[in-house]
């Protein structure tokens, strides 16, 4: 369980995280979604006690991070796979972490085996590929067998095999009843990995809820019938927004049930009634378009 309450972080005049409140529940993979620079990493650093919030607080397993005894036993995090001394071997990197939290030395070999780095455990971490570094970072996160896990952009730059491996790992960790928060700016990836979403833009909470609901919120209903003008009028009268397209009428803000019933109530015939599920990308752009920090202004493109 991660509880974020009114978390705020300012850097000079910019507010990186603005009064952010959300919960991350155990047993699910929760996606932490937002464009680049929206405050995801800053939020995660504050949850881990690395950065000091200007207001609000974050609690992990009911405690502030600083109050946790041997925190690696409760929280595991991969914020950046490059947080390793390049001349230190993978095994030494995990050994000092284990010793700092009183974890048995045997755990080092166990997690190396879990992430498949046993063969290169003695090699210096600086020679690792991005995928291997990412696995080492995950090994460090799993070291204390923690109930809460945070991953910041874990699939960035990975090959498809690595992406699949991380996706399955996160789902397995959640299925074991752990709390998993994973940030990404890749919505399509989140749609496959996360069952819950926390969406932020410019440090503010934009939306929170099940991924399925989030995807459906961007859905339209396409209707086609012999008398499009009458259907459009009936739907507008029922309070829907209707746009005419080549394929038929595009109705926004409704489900197939409600649209079908509205047309039926007007006594009109339909030839087609289809849910057009918008992509997660479209839904996301729709929700966060006011909150993108570095938006292209479209300069040079004639209006």
């Amino acid at each position: 369980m991660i509880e974020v309450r009114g978390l705020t972080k300012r850097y000079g005049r910019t507010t990186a995280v603005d009064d952010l409140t959300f919960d991350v529940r155990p047993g699910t993979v929760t996606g932490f979604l937002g464009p680049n620079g929206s405050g995801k990493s800053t939020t995660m650093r504050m949850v881990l006690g690395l950065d000091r919030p200007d207001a609000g607080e974050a609690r992990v397993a009911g405690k502030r991070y600083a109050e946790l005894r041997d925190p690696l036993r409760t929280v595991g995090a991969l914020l950046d796979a490059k947080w390793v001394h390049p001349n230190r071997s993978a095994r030494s990197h995990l050994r000092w972490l284990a010793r700092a939290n009183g974890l048995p030395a045997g755990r080092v070999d166990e997690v190396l085996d879990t992430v498949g780095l046993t063969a290169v455990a003695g090699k210096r971490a600086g020679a690792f590929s991005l995928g291997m570094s990412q696995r080492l970072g995950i090994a460090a996160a799993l070291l204390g067998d923690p109930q809460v896990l945070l991953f910041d952009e874990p699939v960035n730059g990975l090959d498809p095999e690595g992406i699949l491996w991380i996706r399955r790992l996160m789902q397995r960790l959640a299925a074991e009843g752990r709390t998993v928060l994973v940030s990404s700016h890749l919505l399509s990836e989140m749609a496959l990995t996360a069952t819950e979403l926390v969406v932020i833009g410019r440090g503010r909470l934009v939306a929170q809820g099940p991924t399925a609901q989030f995807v459906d919120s961007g859905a339209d209903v396409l209707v086609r019938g012999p008398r499009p003008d009458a259907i459009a009028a009936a739907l507008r009268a029922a309070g829907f927004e209707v746009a005419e397209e080549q394929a038929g009428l595009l109705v926004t803000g409704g489900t197939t049930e409600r649209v079908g019933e509205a047309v039926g109530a007007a006594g009109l015939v339909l030839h087609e009634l289809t849910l057009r599920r918008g992509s997660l990308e479209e839904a996301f752009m729709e929700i966060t378009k006011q909150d993108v920090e570095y938006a292209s202004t479209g300069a040079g493109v004639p209006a």
Partner: protein
Amino acid sequence: MSAAGLIAAERIKLASVRSPWWCAGLAVAGVIGLTGLLVLVEPGGMADAPGGSNPFLLFGLMLVLVLAAVSVTTEYRYSTIRMTFEAVPNRTAAVLAKTVVVAVVSGVIGLVASLGAWAAMWLLDPLSDTALRTSDDWWVVLSPAPVFAACAVLALAVGILVRHTAAAVSIVLVWPLMGEQLVSFIPGFGPAVQPWLPFVNAGNAMTAGGGDLPFSPVGSLAYVTGLAAALLVAAIVVVNRRDA
């Protein structure tokens, strides 16, 4: 999160990369080698060293300062400091554990270098008087251990405060090698503060005394240790305040 665990973690960090080994090896080999070379070229030459202390220890001390500063600046360079604070949210405890390890390692380097140089003189130079009769003789041979340790803590604190390797190394090398001399040259002000400069005192602490400083060697050691402690406290306060 036991103290022993934290110290063990810091020991693993220091021992699992190559640069501390290089610094330590060069410091010891440099002091012993230069001493040996000098007494071979000019037998009896070391006996005239001021106050009986070995001037080549300064060379070893510089490498120890680098070792100490770099032990923490590389943590900032590669952001492992964040991993450290993730594992040990009590930053004061994390810094103290590193201080203990760096101080002990530096003390051992000082001791091995000093004893090694003494052994080199005893082996190679029939003209020098290497007998350890008085407590002053013992002090000259053994004092590099605590002096190296105290100076290493000073350098570690500088490393924590400035965070960048290049800046920290420049400070800990330029200050003792040039800065203190330049300060001493300032008319009026220089001679007044010169007895209070940290590395003037570190040098004095490794002699048998008799210089024109207000402190005895033991007093100088206590003074340098006090300075190191004060700077370390400042570093700990800063580390607790700023974002990792």
